[in-house]
C-alpha cells in the first residue's frame, strides 16, 4: 500500500517537473471587460511574431473584467505581466497603492502609452426615430438614455465627462449652465448597469431607451453583431478623447523574468499588423498607413483630452466621481 502511494507520489512529482521544464514562457494580459475578442485576435499574431524573432515559443493569456476590478485583483496578487486598460487611473493606482510600476509609466511607450484610442459615440435605433444628432438632443425631455454607472464603469466616466465637455464648449464655461445640462442628461438615464456589456444588454435585449452611449468601437461592434439593419451610429461633433493606456507591471514581470516579452508585446500593439486588427475592431489608431486605409470608417470630430479641461485623473475623481462630488450632487438634485 505504502509503496503504491509512494510510487504515485513520485510519478506525479516527475510529471510536474517534466511539465515545468518544457513549459514555454507565459505572459498574462489583464484587460478591461469588452476587449476579449480584440486580444483573442491579436495574441496569436504576436505569438507567431515572437517565435519567428526569438526562436522560442510564448503564450499570452488573457484576463478580463472592469479595469478597476482588475487593478484591485492585481494589487491583491493577480500575477499580470501587462495591463491594457481603458483609463489611466487604474494604472496609476498600481503605483500608488502597490508600487508595482514606476509613476512615469506613461512615458514608456509612444502616444502617452496608449496604442489606440476611441471616443464616446451614440447607438440609436434604426432610422434614428428620435432624430438624435448631437449632445443637445440627449438633454431633451422625450429622450431616454442607457449608459452604465459612472461610479463602477470607466466607460461611463468618459460618457459623463464627454457631456460635460460639450456643455463647457457650448456655454463657454458657465458652471451653472454646465451643471444644468449634465443634470438633464443624467435625468434621462433609465438604467445604470455596472458595466458596459450590461448596458448593451439593457439597450439591445430589453429594448430600454432611445440611445446607448458607449465607446465608438463598441457602438460599431454592437451594430455589426446585432444587426446593421436595426441600429444606426451617431458620432457627435465634439466628444472626449478616450485613450486606452498600457503598461508593463514591472514588479511582476521582473519577478517572473518576463520583462522583455511583456515589453515586446506592448510594443507590438503599435505595429501596422496589430493596428490593422485594432482598426478592424473600430478603435482609432496612430499608424499613418492604417489611419489612411480606414479614413472613411472614422468621421472627423473635435476630440478633447480630459486632462486639458479637468486636470489629472486624481483631480477628476475627487471633483466629479468621489462620494459627495459633482456626480452625486447632480444625481441627488434629480432625485428630489
Amino acid at each position, binding site marked *: 500500500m505504502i509503496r503504491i502511494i509512494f510510487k504515485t507520489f513520485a510519478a506525479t512529482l516527475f510529471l510536474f517537473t517534466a511539465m515545468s521544464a518544457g513549459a514555454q514562457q507565459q505572459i498574462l494580459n489583464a484587460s478591461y471587460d469588452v476587449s476579449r475578442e480584440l486580444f483573442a485576435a491579436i495574441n496569436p499574431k504576436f505569438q507567431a511574431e515572437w517565435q519567428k524573432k526569438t526562436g522560442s515559443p510564448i503564450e499570452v493569456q488573457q484576463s478580463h473584467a472592469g479595469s*478597476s476590478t482588475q487593478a484591485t485583483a492585481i494589487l491583491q496578487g493577480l500575477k499580470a505581466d501587462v495591463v491594457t486598460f481603458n483609463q489611466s487611473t487604474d494604472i496609476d493606482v498600481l503605483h500608488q*497603492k502597490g508600487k508595482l510600476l514606476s509613476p512615469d509609466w506613461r512615458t514608456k511607450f509612444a502616444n502617452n502609452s496608449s496604442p489606440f484610442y476611441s471616443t464616446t459615440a451614440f447607438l440609436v435605433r434604426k432610422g434614428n426615430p428620435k432624430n438624435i444628432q448631437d449632445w443637445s438632443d440627449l438633454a431633451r425631455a422625450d429622450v431616454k438614455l442607457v449608459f452604465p454607472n459612472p461610479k*463602477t464603469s470607466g466607460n461611463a466616466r468618459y460618457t459623463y465627462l464627454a457631456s460635460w465637455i460639450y456643455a463647457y464648449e457650448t456655454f463657454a464655461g458657465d458652471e451653472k449652465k454646465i451643471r444644468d445640462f449634465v443634470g438633464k442628461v443624467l435625468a434621462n*438615464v433609465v438604467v445604470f448597469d455596472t458595466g458596459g456589456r450590461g448596458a448593451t444588454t439593457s439597450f439591445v435585449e*430589453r*429594448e430600454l431607451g432611445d440611445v446607448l452611449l458607449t465607446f465608438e468601437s463598441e457602438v460599431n461592434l454592437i451594430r455589426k453583431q446585432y444587426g446593421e439593419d436595426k441600429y444606426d451610429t451617431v458620432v457627435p461633433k465634439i466628444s472626449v478623447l478616450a485613450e486606452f493606456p498600457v503598461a508593463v507591471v514591472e514588479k511582476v514581470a521582473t519577478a517572473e523574468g518576463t520583462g522583455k516579452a511583456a515589453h515586446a508585446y506592448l510594443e507590438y500593439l503599435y505595429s501596422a499588423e496589430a493596428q490593422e486588427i485594432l482598426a478592424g475592431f473600430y478603435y482609432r489608431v496612430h499608424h499613418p498607413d492604417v489611419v489612411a486605409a480606414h479614413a472613411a470608417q472614422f468621421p472627423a470630430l473635435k476630440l478633447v483630452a480630459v486632462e486639458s479641461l479637468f486636470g489629472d485623473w486624481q483631480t477628476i475623481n475627487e471633483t466629479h466621481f468621489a*462620494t459627495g462630488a459633482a456626480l452625486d450632487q447632480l444625481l441627488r438634485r434629480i432625485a428630489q
Partner: protein
Amino acid sequence: MKGGNRVLPGFRLSLGLGVLYLSLIVLLPATTLVLQAAQIRWSELLFYFTDPRLLAAVRVTFIAAICASLCNALLGLLLAWILTRYEFPGRKFADTLIDLPFALPTAVAGLTLSALFAKNGWIGKMLAPMGVEISFSFAGIVLAMTFTSLPFVVRSLQPVIEDLAPEYEEAAECLGATRWQIFWRILLPSLIPALSMGTTLALVRSLGEFGAVIFIAGNMPFATEVVSLMIFTYIGEYAYEAAAAVAFVLLLTSLLILLIVQLLQRRYSAREKL
C-alpha cells in the same frame, strides 16, 4: 468531560479540527474585514454614513428585504406544507426545484428574471398593458430577493411539518374546532420557531444579495440602489476602508437580527413548555 465517554471517538481531535475549520472559513475573513474597516478615520466614517445616497440605499435594501421575507414566509409555509403533507405526481421533482435558487449562480438568476419581466419579456409583456413594471424597479429587487431566499423558509419548515403528527389536527377536528382554529391554535404555534428562523435567514440573505439584484434593479441612485452595490461602488473608487466599514455594519446588523430572533425563540419555547 473525558474524551473516552463520548459516543464518537476522537473528541479532542474532531473538536480541534472543527474549530480550526470554522476559524479559517468564517472567523478569519470576518476579522480581516473588521481590521480593514478599523482603518477608516472618524471624519470619513461620519462622511460616508451621512451620505444621503447610502442612506437611501439602506432604506431600499431593508424595505425590499422585509417585503421579500414576508412573501417567502407566506408562500414558503404553503409550499412546505404541500410538499410534505400532500401526495401528488411530480412531488419529488417540485421538492428538488426548491433548491434551484441555491444551485443557480445568482447573477444568472438576476439576468433570467430581468429578461422574463422586462417590457419585452414573456411575463413583462402581459404586465405592461396594466401599467405594472417589475424589471428595473423596486418590485424587481423584491422579486430577486424572494427568488434567492425561498429555500431557507421551505427547508427549515419541512422537517418540522414532517414531525407534526396529524393526530393533533384530527383530535382538534373531533372536538369541534374549525379549520381556521386548527391552523391558528394547533399548527401555527408549533411551526413558529422554524418559520421565524427560516424567515430571518431569508431576510439576512436578502440584505446582502448582490448578483441577482443588480441585474434587475435598474440601479438608479436614491431609488433602486442596494447597499451591496454601494459597497461594490466604494471598491471601484478604491475606498476599501469605506467598503469594509459599510460591509461590517451590514454584517453586524445581520448578526444582531439573528441573535434577537434566537433570544425571542428561547423565550417563546420556554413559555410553551409551561
